[in-house]
Every structure is written in structure tokens, then in C-alpha cells.
């Protein structure tokens, strides 16, 4: 079980958290301007990287705050965590 450093609460067990998929996938500023394919890519297509991967987590059983983490998908090691709005 991962030990995840919530930027608000500190290190906590993985079971306290909820996974939120890839980070930095912004909601399009004007969805109506996108083609079906572009909208489909936004909705359904995410990278499946081997190595450091920026992803979202929520401390569901704690402060209920969302934050970002960079996790190495090969080793499962969380390299760093940062708050929403902070640079990747």
C-alpha cells in the first residue's frame, strides 16, 4: 500500500485516497468549438505512460482535497506531490 503525502495532511495510507486519473487535462475553454474527434479525445483518451506520470488524487477519507502527484508507473513510487494550481 502506497504511503501518499497529502500536501495538507501529510503521509497517509493509500486507502484514504481516491485516484483521479491524469492531471493537467484542462476542461476545454469552448467545447462547442471542438470537432467530435477532438471532444472524444478529451473525453476518452489518456496517455498510458511508463515512467513519471502526473496524476490527480483526492484525500477522500481525510481533508477531501484534490491534489496532484507525480508517480513513476514502473516502480509505483510517488516522486512528488503538489497542490492544485501549483506548477507541475
Amino acid at each position, binding site marked *: 500500500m*502506497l*504511503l501518499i503525502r497529502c500536501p495538507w495532511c501529510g503521509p497517509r495510507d493509500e486507502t484514504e485516497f481516491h485516484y483521479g486519473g491524469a492531471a493537467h487535462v484542462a476542461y476545454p475553454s469552448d467545447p*462547442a468549438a471542438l470537432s*467530435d474527434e477532438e471532444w*472524444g479525445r478529451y*473525453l476518452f483518451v489518456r496517455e498510458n505512460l511508463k515512467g513519471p506520470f502526473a496524476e490527480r488524487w*483526492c484525500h477522500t477519507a481525510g481533508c477531501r482535497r*484534490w491534489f496532484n502527484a507525480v508517480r513513476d508507473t514502473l516502480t509505483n513510487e510517488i516522486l512528488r506531490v503538489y497542490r492544485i494550481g501549483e506548477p507541475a
Partner: protein
Amino acid sequence: MSGDGLRHATEGRIDRGTVLRFRFDGTAYSGHPGDTLASALLANGVRRIGTSVRLGRPRGVMSAGSEEPTGVVQLEAPFPDPMRPATMVELHDGLVASSLSGRGRLADRPDPARYDAVHAHCDMLVVGAGPAGLAAASLAVRSGARVILADERPEVGGASPDTEGDDWFDRAGARVLTRTTVFGYYDDNYLVAVERRTDHLGAAAPGNLARERIWRIRAGQVVLATGAHERPIAFAGNDLPGVMLADSARTYLHRYGVLVGRRAVVFTINDSGYRVVADLAAAGVEIAALVDPREATGGTVGGQVGGRYGGHVVVAAHGDDAHGHDVLSTVDIEPVGGGPTVRVDADALLVSGGWSPVLHLYSQSGGRLRYDEVVGAFLPDGCRQAVTVAGAARGLTSTTACLVDGVDAARQALTALGITPVDWSPPSVGAGAEGPPPATAAPGGVPDLRFVPAEDYSTHFVDFQRDVTVADVLRATGAGLRSVEHVKRYTTAGTAHDQGKTSGLLTSAVVGQALDAGIAELGHTTFRPPYTPVSFAALAGRDRGQLYDPVRVTAIHDWHVRHGARFEDVGQWRRSWYYPAEGEGLAEAVRRECVAARTGVAFMDASTLGKIEVQGPDAGRFLDRLYTNVMSTLAVGAIRYGVMCGLDGMVFDDGTVARLAPDRFLLTTTTGNAGPVLDWMEEWLQTEWPDLAAWCTSVTDQWATVAVVGPRSRDVLARLAPGLAVDAATFPFMTWRDTVVAGLPARVCRISFSGELAYEVNVAWWHGLALWEAVYEAGAPYGITPYGTETMHVLRAEKGYPIVGQDTDGTVTPQDLGMAWVVSKKKADFIGKRSFARSDTARPDRKHLVGLLPEDPTLLLPEGVHVVDPACLAGGRLPEPPVPMLGHVTSSYRSAALDRTFALALVAGGRDRIGDRLYAPLDDGRLVPVTVAGPVLYDPEGARRDG
């Protein structure tokens, strides 16, 4: 073989002054405290312990530890327990066990034992309390670290009988967990162990003590001092009872005072077999032969040996007519490479095929292994987790070397923790307790003999529990399998309860020989938790029965119980399902409740509805983005129905929104979806729209809600709230009023989920029961009837109101539900809007929510049943599968108001099929005709909502 004289007079750590009585396969035996079931059976001369699963061959005890592949028994008393290695069952008075044929039997009665869990943190977790582990823990304790030391055996000291006296171990300074198997090693040094607390006490076990405890340990540093397992060698008949791992014979002698035989042959490919010869000879066992494929068999051997066979191998083990074919009687010895066979009589054949470091946990932690040609086994080769391997687990063989290595490992780990290690070493062990020199110093080195060459490999066993032989492995490679993982799955070698502890390397060696490849390049199969089997009861701990999942009940729950309600679980909530009167079943009760709601007055506990309050100057804007319709234009005092969709445009939840103040809204959600809706709102607020000044709070448990429903509901409310103008003009549909009801501060909403005139009365949770009882009393003159979720479902379905999650399944848009009116055309954007323009969501033949009327008005369609187009039928029968289906029934009920059965269904192009006849194939083979109707079957004009 009778048991007379198999118990040594002085050796062992058993309490000879106390006699324990036990039964095995119906026969009474005795043993002593300190025995295992295996040692007691061996002391009583019981050699055959079971029958193999596939071939039905006799099997005995092979080892003295948890790696045991064959000596697996069924415990019958004190409580049935399947597949327990006899080597790990501590003897107690009254134990009853029986032999197995491969498989055990689960208990046929509930387990009365308690199970528990502990969460622990430490600076250093030391796994294994042999010399290396004890030394590591001792240094860490003395240096001031928080230490947990865990070992699967009843006492510290390790598997080797050589460790004598651990007086230098400061047990007070560490948390010492004996009878505790660390069975899993996960990310970030999270390890899980099971502690067996009462099994060794038998019937004397205190009832208040948990039988087993799961330890979930987060460790700063881990030292794995998990030792090594001796390996068997494959030769003909190597599974016969009497054939045993060589060093286990020493353990039986030194720990249990048991002689594993009277006349033994020792077959070893390394020097550790020689100490077996010395110790057994000293204890009075006749060593009939010492067989070593190496040409030179080393210098002196302590003890008399009948025959020394350097450059020889054991080719076969046999039973005979005199002693029975179930147990070992003779051993055939031949020169390496073939030659004349020598047959030697023996009742024990002690085999050492070398030692495999126990690296299961290390490998689970992510540690790499490399094959070491000199040691002849896999050794640790680096891991990113904070773990150090010490002692025999990294190939060391002498006790002194292991002690020193344990100290070194602890020193490294402490330094990494930022703790300064003190200057301390364990007292040096005496020369008598010295193990053999490192294998590398052995004359001739360690030959890589894993299996003895033969014409016929059909009884050269590799995995004893799965009955896998060298022949089976060769069949796998012959079939073209190249990977050890594939061979494992093809042959099942390594998949038994022991997970290949003794067989893994042997399997790889056979594959290697067949493919002319080295073990190093073949690698090893993946080690997965658990290290040894763990019961589900232990893993479940207290989380079973009532404690498996919290049950949420409303403030009015006790009233429902007192009035005979039947309940159903909705999410975590336990809700009233229906209230049967004397002699009524579900159908009769629901019919009566429905009639009351449609013709008089009925009331329901709706407290479980999810409630979320949204506050802030941007609350309206926020809701406009979440809901498909506009909420910001809602007037204070008004209520609006709304639908939320996912980004994909599919319905996610529905409910009402009441505007309490310009910057305050109260949302309701479906009962089971309150948590996910709040999470969804928070996710958008925090991650996409942190600029919006809006805040969400769950208020589900703050408000108890009583729905008063039916044409006479206004009369009931008027009696309870004399200060409230209840007429339809002053208090119109979809508005709310703060008032006093039954003397309680209340918010009354004119919301209807039945189509009838209805009021939802909300009071503080702790006033819920008082309100309910007041409504019951005030409604008595009108025959007010309590109703549950089933009646609620019938009433809403008659009106075509969908239930998200029942009539929808994540592939349904608001338009599919016939609710295009709830989707704003004016708003520039909201969640899901873009998806409504995708080609797939705009298709005209999507599945629509429609009503279905079975042509037989008494036939209740099963929910989930498919509907098909008559055009696909051939001669009135279904065509060959796959049968094209138009959709399926999502809700189906008997309606009192319609005086017939009806259903809601999602049907392709359903709104264009109204009036069509379709067919529903039932389980019993009938094809029943149904007519498609609009979803609103009762009061389609909406004439009843104002009473």
C-alpha cells in the same frame, strides 16, 4: 515402524514430564508440549500422513517447517481447519487430525473464533528471529530504535537447531511477535503479517482472545532474515514416506528429541549433509551410507558411516513386501554416470540438494534476484525499497557469519534512519555450534545436480503436493513451452499451498536442462503474497456480519421496526420496503399502500434522500454548470427539478433544487448517490473552477423528511400547521415554506414523486420521530397509511418518473428518457452539453424510456427481460442466437390504479414504436406479447398534483 525408541532420552526442547493426548486417523497417540503434530507422529512411528492428490501415492513428512510440501493434514478438533502442514501445528491435548488426499474440507459450521487486526509502525521490522534476525534486532534495540521482530515459530532462535541461548537478545526492547508469519510485502515498506494466538492452546484457549490477528505494519526499514530452505533432489521414488530433507532430521533430533529413523542413508550434494551424519550418528542412528556425487567427500565425518559413496548418487527409493510399500525400505545407489547398483536397507533417506535463500518477501518488495552459480541459488540483487537482506537469506551458511551479517544489516538500516548504531556485537558462538564452512569452500564445490538422470522420470517428483514429476516438466518443454511461468501454469508445479518453496528451483533446473539454458537466463516465477496460506477469516477480521458495512438508519427507524416494516438496503441505508398487515405479502401490502396514496393519504420516511447545501455568491453559476437546466434564475422560495450528466452526456443523478436565499441552494440527490454527487461537485470546484466562490456541505443527516402524499394530504398538513396557508394558490406546486409543523420548526416543500398532491416536511433530524408520530396521529381520521420504497417505486413508475441507476445505466441521456425539456438550449455550456451533439447521442434510434403493457394484464414481466421485434421471429419462435434485441425492461410492477401490470423499458427508437406489439422472451421459453406505450401511464395530464 513402531514408535518404540524413536524418542531420544535427552535431546530436544520438549517437556517430557507432561503428556498430551491426540488422535490421528482415529488412533490415539501421545506427545509432549513442544512437539508439533509432525514430530509427535514421527515419534509414534507414523510415517504415512496422506495420499497424493493426483496419483494417490503415499506421502509423509518431508521437512520441519512452513516449506512442508507433503505432510498436510485436516484438523478436526477443536475446530475443522483444512490443509494445515503438520510441521506447523503445535501439539495440544485433545487435538484431532486426519490424513488428506490432496484437498482439505472447509468447516461445515460457523467459526466461533474471533479475529482481529492491528496497525503498527516501527523504525525497523526484522523478519525472522534466527541468528541474523536476532543480531539485527538486538543492535537496533540497543541503539534506541522502535523494533518489531516477527517469526513464524513459537520461539525465537530460528530454524537452525544450532542457535543455543539467546540471552544476549534484549526482548524487552522490541515488540517480539512469535507465531507470526509476515506474508506480504507491499509498496512503501508496508508489510502484512498474521499472528496465531490461540491454536497452540487447544481447548484451553481463552474465549476473549482473538484466534488470529492481522498485523499491518509500516516500517522505516526492513531487515529480512528469512533464512533458507533445503531443496530435495529428484530421483525415482523421492516422494516415499521416509525420504526427508536432511537438515530437518537434525531439527527433529535437537528440537523435538525425535529420531526420524533407526538406519539412515544421507544423500547430499553439499557439506551441510555432513553435520547431519555427525549429529544423527552421535544420537545413536545407524548411518548406513553417505552418498555424495562429488568425488571427494570431504575430510573426516563425525561418526560411524556404514558405507561412503563418493562420486555416487541415489537413483531410487523403494518400499518392500516386508515393511509395506507405503514406506521406505531400501535405497539404490549407483556411480555418477551409471554402473553397478548397490541396494542398502534404510528406514530414512535424508536428502540435501543445497539451500535456497528465502526471498519471497524480498521479491514481493520489488527486489531483483540474480542466480549465483557458486551458491547454486538465487540471491538478492538490489531493491528500491528500504530493505536489507541478512544471513542465510543471502546465501550465508555459518551461524557466526549470520550473526555478524545481522549486525551489519542493522547498522546499515539504522544509519539510513538517521539513528547512530551503538557499538555492540553478539557474543561469539561456541565452536560446537558452528555450522559447516561456506559452500564455496567445499571440496569440489557445489555440483548443480538437481535430478538424477534416468530412463523413466515418472516418479522423479519435482512438486510433491501437485504430483508434478520431471516427466511432466519435460512434457511441457516438449510441447514448446520456454518460459518458467508457462511451465508453471502448464504443469501446476509451484501452485500448491506451499507455492513451490522446495520445488521452484528444481523446476527451473529441469527446464534449463531440457532447453540447454542456464537457470540464470530462465529466471524464476513471480513470488506473490501470501508467503503461506492465510485464512479469509483472519483477513476479514472484525469486518464481517453486522460490522462488514455500516448500516445507516433514519431517526424514525425504530417506529418502522415496531410497526412490522420489512426493510431493504439502499446504499448504506436501511429503508422501509413495505408494511405488511396481518396475512399480507408484498403484493397485497403494496396494493393497499398504493390505493391509500392515490385515494386518501399515505406517508413515507424520505429522510434518506441525499441533501447538499450550496452556498456562496457564485452558487447559482456553479449549479448552472452542473445541471442541464438553468438554476440561477430560480426565485427564492421556489424549487426546480434538475438532472446532472457526466461529461459524456449520460444521466448521472437527478433531484430537486430549492433556492433558500440569493446565495443559498438546497439540493436533493438519489439516496444511494449522495456521496458521489458531493464528490463530483467538489472535484469540479477544486480542480477546474477554483475561482468560483461556492461551498458545498452534506446536510443529509441534518434533515428528517416525511412525505405526506395523497388527495387528503392537505387536510392532514392543515391540522398540523395551522399557521400555514395550504391552498394551492398560496402555496403552489414546486415551492417551499418555512413554518411550524406539529410545534416543530419545519420546511415544507410541495414536491411530488407520485403525481398526487404531496408535501415533503423537513425538520431537524432529532425531531424526525416526533414529526412522524404527529403526522400519524393527525392523519388517523383519514386512514393515513405508512408506505415504503416498493410503493414509492410503483407510484413513480405509473407516472413515468425514472430512477437513476434502475431505469438508467450510464448509457442514457436525458433525451433518451424523454426529458429534452430539462436540457437548456440557452446556456452556453454545462457539463455534458457538448456530448449531446456527438453523432452517437444524436442518433434517432437510441434506446428510449417507454412504457410496456403486457397483453395479459396479470403477467408481471421480470425486470431485465429483453424485448424483441416480431420481425425477427421465425414461425413464432426466436431465431438462432445471437438474437437481435431492441432493449430491456428496467422496472416492472402491478398497478392498483391501472388495475393491471405494467413496465418501463429502454427500447431502441421506442418513442416511434408507441402502439407497436413487441415480444419478451421469458426464462421458461414463453414469448409474451407486450404493447409499447408512453412512459406516463397514470394521469398523463398531471391533473392530480394540486389535489
